[in-house]
């Protein structure tokens, strides 16, 4: 471990060492989290509402800072990271939300290319890559539609396309199927799995028992701010 800022050639994509998070209102969201996620892993994060799942996810893309402890994402030590370096870490992370978070006035194509524009990618490259990911999520023919003209599942696929367009090392998905019916959810999960097969690490918080129990992956269960279970090919383990 080195100068602690960047660790190159490391196969651990996410690492937390004794991470605590206490909000200013006194809530202890996380109490001493230790975890490692290897490159190419697919991890479900499960647990009851209010157990600290969301905080756990937010710490990874530096939406929140830990009160105590160290976090490494793709070799960056988030604690030692200067404020103005945060954008460069985020370029390694794709984030997907339950509510899609698309820009309503932009077309599907623009919603995706936007993510490349803001990191100032070359124009030619933007066109090519955007069409490439739209093809991957099977929305190439809807490129010129607006988000409001698409179904929920299609909108989530746009969000996924946007998340992967810059080739991040890891995807953080906070209940990506939370708003979708079971059939559509399976479509999204198939897509997530495909992205994972192509070499992207995925960390996904979910409440969907059926998915976790069918598409077996590593399961991390968080309760009252601590990790109570961490199993490869684990089960959901809660009665919802």
């Amino acid at each position: 471990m080195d100068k602690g800022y960047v660790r190159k050639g490391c196969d651990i994509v996410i690492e937390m060492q004794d991470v605590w998070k206490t909000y200013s209102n006194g809530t202890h969201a996380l109490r001493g989290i230790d975890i490692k996620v290897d490159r190419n892993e697919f991890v479900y994060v499960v647990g009851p509402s209010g157990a600290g799942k969301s905080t756990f996810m937010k710490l990874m893309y530096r939406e929140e800072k830990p009160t105590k402890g160290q976090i490494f994402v793709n070799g960056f030590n988030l604690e030692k990271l200067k404020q103005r370096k945060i954008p460069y870490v985020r370029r390694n992370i794709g984030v997907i939300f339950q509510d899609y978070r698309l820009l309503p006035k932009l077309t599907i194509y623009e919603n995706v290319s936007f993510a490349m524009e803001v990191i100032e990618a070359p124009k030619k490259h933007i066109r090519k890559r955007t069409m490439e990911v739209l093809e991957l999520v099977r929305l190439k023919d809807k490129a010129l539609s607006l988000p409001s003209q698409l179904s929920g599942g299609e909108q989530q696929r746009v969000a996924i396309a946007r998340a992967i367009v810059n080739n991040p090392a890891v995807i953080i998905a906070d209940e990506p199927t939370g708003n979708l019916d079971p059939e559509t959810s399976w479509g999204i999960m198939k897509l997530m799995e495909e992205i994972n097969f192509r070499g992207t690490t995925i960390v996904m918080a979910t409440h969907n028992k059926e998915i976790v129990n069918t598409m077996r992956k590593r399961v991390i269960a968080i309760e009252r701010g601590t990790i109570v279970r961490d199993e490869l090919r684990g089960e959901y383990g809660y009665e919802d």
Partner: protein
Amino acid sequence: MKINTPSRHMREGVRNIVRNGWMTFASVSSIAISLFILGVFVLLTLNVNDWADQVENRVEVKVYLEVGVPQEQVDSLEADMKAIPEVKSVTFVSKEEGLVYLRQQLGENSKDLLEGLDGEDNPLGDAFTVEAKDPRSVSVVADKIGALNLGKDPKPIDKIDYGKETVKKMFKIMDIIRWGGFGIVLLLSLSAVFLIANTIKITILARRKEISIMKLVGATNSFIRWPFFIEGALLGLIGSLIPIALLLIGYWNLVQVADADTLDLFMIQLKPFGEIGLTLTVLLLCIGMFIGVWGSLLSVRKFLRV
């Protein structure tokens, strides 16, 4: 910054200005009003300064001698005055010349009054007009000339006169114009800054979602900031062009009218249009842009913390 990025920022900035219609109007007009008033004061100050310089250079010391001072004493006084280091020139004004001058000054009405005072009956004394090398040292010169009277009996110098009070008053008025104008402009500029900050805050609020997504996918703060920065600068630019146009047109017309000798009465000469026009344009443009940029930075700063 990549090659295609500046044009994107420009496009965004212009789009925001159009989108915010009324707030744009409000902030542009508040800048325009502030700068218009500033411009008026600038024109006034520059001209008053110029006028003050002219008047200042006209300042001279008049030394009036007693009636009947013998010629050799007059000559020695002239030599003594020329020997004062601060003195630039000494001109002798004989009592005959003094009378001629007095007649000119009083005009027709004096005909009776000054009748038959020529030659031996001339009631005036001789006089000197003394110019100082530096107009600001006239009082020193006057004091030194006054000292020549000492130890002489009868005293040859009757009165020493220079426009001390007038000059002092003039500088006071100029200071009031300058500082008063500065104060008013400062207040107006601050209100313009806050209006612009508000305009841009509205843009930011409308685009909060967009900004949060930009941050999530890794846009740098400066990338996010640029369009707002441009929006502010453009607001300032538009806001300053209006008063610049009005003031230039107004001053040009004033110069035309002034040439028709109305103002000559007051010994005021307006500064030429070309010279003052450039100063005014550059000054107002810079201040306008500065206010705009400041306003935008003020509102963007808070929103970029995360």
